[in-house]
C-alpha cells in the first residue's frame, strides 16, 4: 500500500543518507582499521537502504535507483539526524551512536511486523546494526575516557547532534494507519534513550540538555545539508537520463 511504501521510504532514506555520508570516510579515517570499519558499516547500511527502497518502489513500479537518484529533496523522508554532517570523527561517531541505537530497537520490533517484507528486512538487518552500535560504543568509551581534548570534543559532538534526537520519536498520521505494520516511533523513545544514557554514563559523558529542533524530515522538510548531499549524489546519474550502469 502507499502507506507502507511511505514508511519503507522513511527507513530506506534514513539508511541511504547515512550510507552516503559514511562512504565519504573511506580513505579519510583516523586509522586504516577505521577506513575498513566505517566502510563496512556504510556498506551494511547501504544494503538496508536498498532493501527498504526496493520494497517501497513496488508500490508504484519504481526501482531503488529511481528513488535514490530521481526524487527531489522534498520527496525524501530522512530524519535530520541522518543528514547531520560528518564533521570530525567524533561528530560521525556521535551521530552513529544515536542512529544505531535507534535502528537497533526499531528493527528488533519491526521483525515482528505484520508486513512480511518489512519483517524480513528488519530481521536480516538487526544483527548488523548491533555490531554498528558496538563499534560506536567502543569509540564513545575511548573518546570519552581518552584525553582531555577527546573528551571535550565528543561531548560537544553529542551536544551538536542532540537537537535531532527528538524527531526520531515523533509519530506522524501515517503511523496511525499502519497499526501492526510500522513501529510507532514514540514507543521507541524510552528504550532508546535509556540505552544511550547507559552508554554515556559508562563513557563518563553528560547527556546533553539542549532544546530539540523542529525538524520535519518525515514531511519532506529537510536540513540545509540535504540539498548539497543530493546534488553530489545525483549529479552523474542525472546527467545521463535513461542510461543504465
Amino acid at each position, binding site marked *: 500500500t502507499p502507506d507502507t511504501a511511505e514508511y519503507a521510504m522513511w527507513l530506506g532514506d534514513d539508511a541511504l543518507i547515512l550510507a552516503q555520508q559514511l*562512504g565519504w570516510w*573511506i580513505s579519510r579515517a583516523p586509522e586504516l582499521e577505521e577506513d575498513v570499519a566505517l*566502510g563496512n558499516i556504510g556498506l551494511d547500511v547501504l544494503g538496508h537502504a536498498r532493501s527498504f527502497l526496493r520494497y517501497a518502489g513496488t508500490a508504484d513500479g519504481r526501482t531503488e*535507483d529511481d528513488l535514490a*537518484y530521481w526524487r527531489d529533496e522534498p520527496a525524501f523522508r530522512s530524519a535530520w539526524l541522518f543528514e547531520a554532517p560528518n564533521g570530525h570523527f567524533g561528530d560521525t561517531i556521535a551521530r552513529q551512536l544515536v542512529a544505531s541505537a535507534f535502528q537497533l530497537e526499531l528493527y528488533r520490533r519491526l521483525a515482528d511486523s505484520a508486513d512480511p517484507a518489512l519483517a524480513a528486512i528488519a530481521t536480516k538487518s538487526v544483527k548488523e546494526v548491533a555490531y554498528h552500535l558496538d563499534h560506536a560504543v567502543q569509540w564513545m568509551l575511548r573518546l570519552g575516557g*581518552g584525553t582531555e581534548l*577527546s573528551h571535550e570534543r565528543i561531548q560537544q559532538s553529542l551536544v551538536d547532534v542532540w537537537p535531532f534526537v527528538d524527531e526520531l520519536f515523533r509519530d506522524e498520521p501515517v503511523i496511525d494507519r499502519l497499526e501492526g505494520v510500522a513501529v510507532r516511533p514514540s514507543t521507541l523513545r524510552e528504550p532508546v534513550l535509556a540505552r544511550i544514557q547507559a552508554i554515556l554514563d559508562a563513557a563518563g559523558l553528560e547527556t546533553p540538555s539542549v532544546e530539540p529542533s523542529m525538524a520535519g524530515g518525515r514531511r519532506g522538510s529537510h536540513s540545509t545539508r540535504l540539498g548539497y548531499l543530493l546534488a553530489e549524489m545525483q549529479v552523474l*546519474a542525472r546527467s545521463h537520463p535513461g542510461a543504465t*550502469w
Partner: protein
Amino acid sequence: EAGQARFDALIEADGRIEPRDWMPAAYRKTLVRQISQHAHSEIIGMQPEANWITRAPSLKRKAILMAKVQDEAGHGLYLYSAAQTLGIGREEMTDQLIAGRARYSSIFNYPTPTWADMGAIGWLVDGAAIANQVPLCRASYGPYGRAMVRICKEESFHQRQGFEILLELSQGTDAQHAMAQDAVDRWYWPSLMMFGPPDDESPNSAQSMAWNIKRFSNDELRQRFVGMLVPQAEVLGLTLPDPNLRWNDETQAYDMSEIDWTEFHEVLAGRGPCNAQRLQHRRQAHDDGAWVREAAHAYATKQAAATEQAAA
C-alpha cells in the same frame, strides 16, 4: 655461515623463508622496500576510486565501489603486517609515506575525471597488478606470499567488476561509450608501464629472481598482460590505443609501439598530475585523525593500568 647455508638451501629448494629464519640483510632490505611500497600503493590507490563513491551512478555500483576501496585498505593492512614481520613499524612506514620519502605505484598519480575510470582502473590497473602479483603468491618470503594469495583472490574479483563497468558503458548510450573509450585511451599506456622498465634497463630484477621473489621478467609479464587484453577489448567493443598492436606469428608475441617512457619518468619524479594531491590527502587524514589515535592510546593505557591494579 650456517644461516646463509640454510637460507641458500631453502631458496634452492623453492622453500619458504619465515620471519624467525636467518636471512641476508640485502634480502630483508629488498623485501621491506618492495612490501612497503606495495602497501603504500594500496593505500594511495584508494583515492582515485574513493573520488567516485559519493557520486556512483547506481546504488549497486556504489556498493561495489565502497567494498572495493575498503578492500584496498584491507590489503594495505595485510601488507603492512607482512612488512612488520621484517622489523619495520607501521608508524615508520606511514611517516615515510607522508613525508614523500616512500615510493608507491605511479599509476595512482593520474586523476579520475569520469566514472568510466572506475572501469578502466579495474580492468587495466587491477589487471596489470594481478599479472604482476600472481607470481608473487609463490614469493620465497612466507608472510608476503600468503598475503598475496588473499590479495590476488580479491583483485581478480575487482578486475571482473571493472570489466563489467566498461561493458555496460560500452553498450550504453553514445555518451557512455565515448566515456569508456576515453578512459581506456588514458589508462592503457600507464597500465603497461606498471610492469616497470624494459628488461635491459631493470637492474634489480636479476637479484630478485635469484631470491625467488620475482619469477618473470618485466617484459614477459607485460607481453602476457597484453595477450590477455586483446580478446577482452574485442568483447568490450573498445579499441586499445596502439595502432601497431598485432599478433606476430613468428615471435609468437604481440608487436606493439614503443612505450614513451618520458611521461612515466616525469610522474615518477613527482611531476604527475596528482602526486601532490595524493600525499596531501593522506597527510590530512593522518593529521586530522591524530587526536583520535591519541585518545585510543590513552584509553588503552588507562585500561591496562586499571586491569593491572585490579590484579594486584
